């Protein structure tokens, strides 16, 4: 049972490394804030979750594996939240006017400054 779990863990870690690498490429290569955030958040969430889940068989004890699972849950809540806050702040400050991708368009009026 354990060798199979370790093999699955290694596969998960390798996939996680690939997704994290894709996130770095996305942050460096995508044209504007929103696509970069999209690439960064999605690929990095997936990558970090896969790495955490994949290292669970290597934790040594079931308590250690449970801790890794809790870290994964924490990451699943906090990372999208932070990206949402960044995206909203960019939208409110209309930062996207500075990027060539959106230069011909007018800023989207949708969200008021105050709730």
């Amino acid at each position: 049972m354990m060798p199979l779990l370790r093999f699955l863990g290694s596969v998960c870690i390798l996939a996680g490394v690939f997704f994290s690498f894709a996130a770095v490429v996305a942050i460096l290569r995508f044209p504007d804030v929103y696509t970069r955030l999209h690439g960064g958040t999605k690929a990095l969430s997936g990558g970090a979750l896969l790495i955490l889940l994949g290292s669970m068989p290597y934790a040594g004890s079931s308590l250690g594996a449970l801790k890794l699972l809790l870290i994964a849950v924490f990451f699943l809540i906090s990372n999208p939240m932070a990206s949402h806050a960044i995206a909203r702040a960019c939208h409110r400050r209309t930062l996207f006017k500075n990027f060539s991708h959106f230069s011909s368009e007018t800023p989207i009026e949708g969200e008021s400054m105050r709730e």
Partner: protein
Amino acid sequence: MSEPLLAFLYFFILLTAFVAVFLDDLLSSFISLSVTGVLMATVFALLRAPDVALTQAIINSGLITSLLLVAYSHTRRTPLPSGPCTACPSWLRWPLAALICFLLAVLLFRGMYSLAGERALETASTHFLAETLRETGALNVVAAILLDYRAFDTLGETTVIFAAVAGISLLLSGGKHVRSRQGLSFIVKRGMALLTPFLLLYAASILFLGHLTPGGGFQGGSVFATVAILICVVYGTGFDASRVSSKSKETLEVGGALLFVFIGLLGAAWGGGFLANLKGPFFPGTPGSLFSGGNMLFLNLAVGLKVGAGLSSIFYVMIKILEQEGEQ
């Protein structure tokens, strides 16, 4: 010890520190600096210094970055002069920086190999490692040194924090209190509400189990301050101020200092000297239980109150002025 991993981390610590100094964009420098902090925390954890690793991770990546960001938004930046630098000619600058980096890396490697041998453990540390449990009743040797053998130094350190808080509050105290109730969006507020109890529980566990596991008053207080900063940012300063006013933060901080001195005087009154632990009125308890290690639990509580209230009130004072400028 995993030497290739450590060498890799040393290289990246130097690289990120170097990048943080030489980048023109200050915000990118802050990010690079916080990466340096995380890497240093990893190195400390690998070298089996979890107390220092905790402090490094919390202070450098959480608190310092937020304080630097607040300071960044307070200040104006002038563009760099474009002419040639007169202090150091440009052909010399990069080789000089590379040379300094290389020498520092050599020193770090030497330090790593001297730590690996037995030679480093010939001094006072042998006594501490052998006798701490008998002399203080605490499992965590670092906490025993900070709060028993060197408790007077810890009192001095907390006084330094007190002076820093007083100075910053005095410098930035002008103007009226404008409080924002705006905060971030609904999603972030709900998510923060979901996470806050766990963050507080984590901070309390670091604080109250400081004499048993890595951590202690300083680290736990810093996590409390980080939670206060997060609440301040997410819900707006008005929410934070309506729950815990700056007056009560002041009271908590002064209460921490008074508790520390009171415990010290209690030891002196028992005839064991100022801040005496087991020679004073305190019991060692069973090793590993919550009420062991004599006065360390209470000293951790005092330091945690002081550090948490002090650091969060520094942030509150700094962000208060920011909002005055922003919302006019």
